[in-house]
Structure formats: C-alpha cells, structure tokens
C-alpha cells in the first residue's frame, strides 16, 4: 500500500479547493460533527426541497482526508433524494471499512476514498462528514441537531 493510494489526486484537489465550502443561511437542516481525537470539527448546512437535498455546504477545519471527504460528499449528495443519500451513506461506510467493497450503487468520484480502509487510523477522518450528514437529516427541523462525534 503506497501513500498515494490514500492521497490520490482527487483527494489532494478537493483538499486544496474544497467545493461547497461555507454556510447556508437560512438552512433547513444543520449539524456539527467533532473528532475528539484530533480536535477537528465540521458543520453542515442544507436546504431541502421536499424529500430532496437542494443545496449543501460545509465548513470547519480538518485534515486533507476529512476536508476532501466532506467536499466530495457535498458534490455527491446535492440534488439527490433523501433515500438516495441514505443509500450512499451506507455504501461509503462500507467502502471505508471493508476491503474491495463492491458497491450496489455507482459511487463516482467518491471511489477516491477507496484507499482509506488500508489506513485504519484515518477512517474516522473520512466518515465524520457522513455521520454528521446522517444526523442533520435525522433531525432536519430542529434548530440544531445533537453534536456528532466519532467516538
């Protein structure tokens, strides 16, 4: 396993230039995630249209893996139905934790995260944004969903 299997070009690009970075005001759903291990934090804000994610933004600070994963996630879920988002959530989780996971749905650019499962110490960096998204959608109409942590 080479280091570039983790730090692929897509990851480095999204770390350098995160997409959908910022905050939506007002938002229909928000959530904050923390990784207490490293002190990193991430907040998500979403606008929904019926049962669909219309817009999503993230901000916060973190390592290249967590920033790129959040950036890739915002691209992947914008415009998707909540059911599709839920399916992606499960597939990405499997991609991050299982060797050679065969995804049931096309993951597109999210496949850039395929190297993460070889670096167990970094799985939480990549999954934080997805857990935070899950929490935001579970409690979309609350002012603030309960803070998510990786622990």
């Amino acid at each position, binding site marked *: 396993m080479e280091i570039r299997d983790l730090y692929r070009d897509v990851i480095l690009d999204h770390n350098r230039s995160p997409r959908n970075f910022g905050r939506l005001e007002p938002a229909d759903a928000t959530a904050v995630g923390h990784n207490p291990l490293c*002190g990193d934090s991430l907040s998500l804000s979403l606008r929904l249209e019926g049962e669909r994610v219309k817009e999503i933004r993230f901000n916060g600070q973190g390592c290249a893996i967590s920033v790129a994963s959040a950036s890739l996630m915002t691209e992947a879920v914008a415009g998707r139905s909540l059911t599709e988002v839920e399916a992606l959530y499960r597939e990405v989780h499997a991609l991050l934790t299982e060797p050679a996971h065969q995804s049931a749905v096309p993951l597109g650019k999210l496949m850039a995260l395929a190297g993460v499962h070889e670096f167990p110490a970094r799985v939480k960096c990549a999954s934080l944004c997805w857990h935070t998204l899950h929490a935001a959608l579970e409690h979309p109409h609350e002012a603030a969903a309960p803070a998510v942590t990786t622990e």
Partner: protein
Amino acid sequence: MNRPLTQPHAPPQAPAQARDSAPPAASAYLDAQGRLRPERVRADFPILGREVHGRPLVYLDSAASAQQPRAVLEAVERYATTTHANVHRGVHALSQEATAAFEAARDTVRRYLNARSTREIIFTRGTTEAINLVAQSWGGAQLQAGDEVLVTHLEHHANIVPWQMACARAGARLVAAPLTPAGEVDAGAFAQLLGPRTRLVAIAHVSNALGTVLPVAGMVALAHARGVPVLVDGAQAIAHQRVDVQRLDCDFYAFSGHKIYGPTGIGVLYGRESLLAAMPPWQGGGDMILSVAIERSTYNELPWKFEAGTPNISGAIGLAAALDYLEMLGRERVAAHGQELLAVATARLRTVPGLTLVGTAASKCGVASFTLAGIHPHDVGTILDREGVAVRSGHHCAMPVMTWYGLAATVRASFGCYNTRADIDQLLAGLDKVREVFA
C-alpha cells in the same frame, strides 16, 4: 542493573544526600569525549530493531511513551519467574522476597528524587492517578468556597481536569497563568495571579506539547513566600532533568514509569511528609489499613495509607530497573544527549520551507512541536508513519495550549536516550516526502 531481588531496602531514615556525581557508565556506552553513544544505548532496546511498513522504525514519540531497555524487561521477567507473590502479607519466602523487592524499588525511587524518606514515596498507576490522589485527598480536605487553584495555560489535561473536579466540589475556582508567545509562563502574570485566595499551585515541570522547561524552583519559592504549597507534574521532565525534590522544594511531584523507560501502569507521587501525614486516605481497601472493624478502621502509616489494594509490584520493580539503568548511563550524560539532539533537530527543522516551530522557549527539553503551512498534522503523521517515522500529531492532551496558539493540532517529535542524529535525518527525509505528496 542486576540488583538482587532480595536486596534489603535501605532504612527509611537513611540520610538524604544528593549524589554529587553519577556512577561511571560502562565505558562501552561512552565515546572518546565521555559523551553518551546513542548507537550503543539503542542496542539495549529490542523494539528499536523492528520494522514498520517495511522501513526501520524511527521512534520519535518518547514523550508519549518511552521504550523499555532489556534491563527493565529482564527485571520484570525475573520477578515473575522467581519471586512473585502478594506483598506485605505472607510469612512465606516468596511473599517476603516480593515485599523486599517492592520496598527496595521504593527506596530506589526515593534516591532518584532525593526525597528524605520512603514515607514520602507513594506508588500510583501513573502521573494522572498521582495528581488525582492529591486533588481528591488534599483538595477534598483543604479547598473551600472562594479558594483558587493556580495552574498555567500549558498544562496537560491531567493537571487541569482533576483540579476542575476538586474546585467544583468545593466551590473553588481554577485560575490559569497565561503564556508568552514563545510558550513560557508569563512570570509577571503568574506572580500577580498568586493571590490571597490561592490555596495551591499545580504546574508542569516541562510542557508535553511545547517542551518548555518551567523555572519550577523560583515558582515554588514565590508560592511558599505566600504559604501556598506546590504540586509539580513531572511526567515530561523526569527522563530529561535531574529532579531533586529537596532542591526544588516542591510539596508534591508526580511522574509516570513509562515516560522514563519503565513499564506502563506504575507511577509515583512524592509528597512532603508533613502534608501527606495530614491528608485523609483517598481509596479504601487492603494494605492501607492497620485494623478493620465494622464500626471503624484505623489507617496504615505512610506511604501505605495511600496504597489501597495489591499494588503493581512488578511495575515498581521495572521502574526501579529503569532508574538504575539511567544511573548507569549517567543522568547528566542522558540530559546532555537530549539537549544536543533537540538543538540539532531544531536547527534542521528551521530549514524546512513552511515549517513553524510551536514553542520556542529559551529553556526546552525533549520535544520539538511544529506545523507545516497548509498541511494538517494528521496528514504529516500518516505520511511519516509510512516512512517508518513515529511522531505524535494532535493536541497532545493539552487543548488549552493549542487554543492559546490558535491551533487544532501540531506535529510533535520527541527524543529519548536511544535517538540518534540519523533519526533526525529520517525525520527530515520524511518531511520532504510530506511536501512532495502535498506539492
């Protein structure tokens, strides 16, 4: 080294005298100038021979946990294979030998710290438990509403949270002295915060996140002038500084075995006898009592009053072996080697483009903390790990320090007696690789 396990422990009243000079190290460990040869020291640490991700291990995380020399591993094994039994209770041979070895270890610690008496040496699980012992026992008895406990902004969480808890119970307040940009405690502010309400000062000897050496003796003198006792968290200092509790004149000194090449799960609280004698026990159980009736119990004498339950006997013996090993190498030589490595590492790190050293105090030891522009410390840590270089990345359990600098994390390279200049070469080569990946 090779201390017989049945060696009777020195009488507790033995006159306490600082050793003027370390015993001569075996000449194989010294170069022509009498300096430590780290390549020879290295050979005593079996783990340093292993590979990580197909590369020779370069261990630069001794501030988190130092590796153990064969002398420690063998002492622990010898105890387990020849002597183990419960201490302080059997009349049989093994129990008596185990007791003698355990109490001999206590005396080795006493000598190492130059404490007056073994009654002042309490074995704990580590620095954290030692501080919690003082916070609960001394703090529970002494702290009252409106009192203050004074710490600094560079403390490890273990020297913050126990005081927060003790203060919350008493209605007291935790106050933290600010830092200078270099990462030193602001002396003027410290003196000012040391006020009429201050009941205790609790400070690190050396900052684990920055490497700053605090002027502990001066801070103790300042506190004592106001009648305030001082606890020193010595976790990061013990492996790098000669610690003489009488010279520091501190009231409590806490450290962990695994930071000084000993086992995990063993640590020490030194306490001034007059303070310890007045403190109530903090945990109840066997060993800490003289007699028990259902109505009431009478407590044991120092130091056992604070050691409820079967102690970590083999841990104490391993710790004593680690201290003997360092005495054999020569504590001053080990300290000088650490200073030389830190100076070399600091000079070389300053040449890395985009690198900022975090913590640039005039007096430092053991630790070089830094950030790389635009690259998160965890990414640095992962890439270095793939090169076989083990460093710590994160907040180092000292989040208030990170907040002080406006950082979430740093990369920390820390040095032990077995590290060489070649290890620093590998660190620098690893940082080149980091910059290549993130170019």
